[in-house]
């Protein structure tokens, strides 16, 4: 899943720690989400949506994972 957390955070001049405190998660979790290593739960996505005052789909976009051949895992 892709997301715009880093951009939205930068626009507001917030650090990862600031955003983490606001969403009540650890800074490591924010870092992992921004890097696309961890997908947040629906409640956390809603929390971010409320915080940035944006629809969820403007923050998180579904992007199927690609394998080495460029195919999505779901299509295999």
């Amino acid at each position, binding site marked *: 899943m892709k997301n715009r957390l880093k951009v939205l955070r930068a626009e*507001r001049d917030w650090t990862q720690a600031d955003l983490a405190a606001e969403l009540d998660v650890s800074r*490591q979790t924010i870092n*992992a989400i921004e890097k696309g290593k961890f997908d*947040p*739960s629906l409640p956390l996505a809603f929390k971010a949506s409320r915080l940035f005052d944006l629809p969820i789909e403007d923050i998180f976009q579904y992007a199927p994972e690609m394998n080495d051949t460029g195919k999505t895992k779901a299509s295999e």
Partner: protein
Amino acid sequence: MSTSIPDGQKLEGRLKRSTQKLFIWTFVWLLSTALVAFGPKLLWDFNIFASSIALAMNVLLGIKMIWANKQHLEEMDEMQQKIQFNAMAVSLAATFVLGTAYGLLKPAGLLASTPSPSNIMFVMGISYIVTLIINTIKYQ
């Protein structure tokens, strides 16, 4: 930036408190385990009543420790929980598979002495810590 969450209620503060509680209950349980292990021989000369009380106390303190661990896990955020649960799953599976194999060593004639169940604790602890480290690095 000031957050809407009071300082005392922040994740780090909550985790610190739950970790302290878990440490205290684990330490107390460990002491009671030592009491059950060494008390009968060194303190009360195998008195059945004293041993029963010590054992009951050990189990009750163990339950309290499990409860403190559960509360500690509940205080974590979702990624921290995922890392912990993955480590627990791998630890459980490794313990099951290697514990079964270990138990079969004597019947298979590969081990002269009777396998000690306490050795399984090492498999559990090591597999848990190794998976915890791997998953923590994975999400960094």
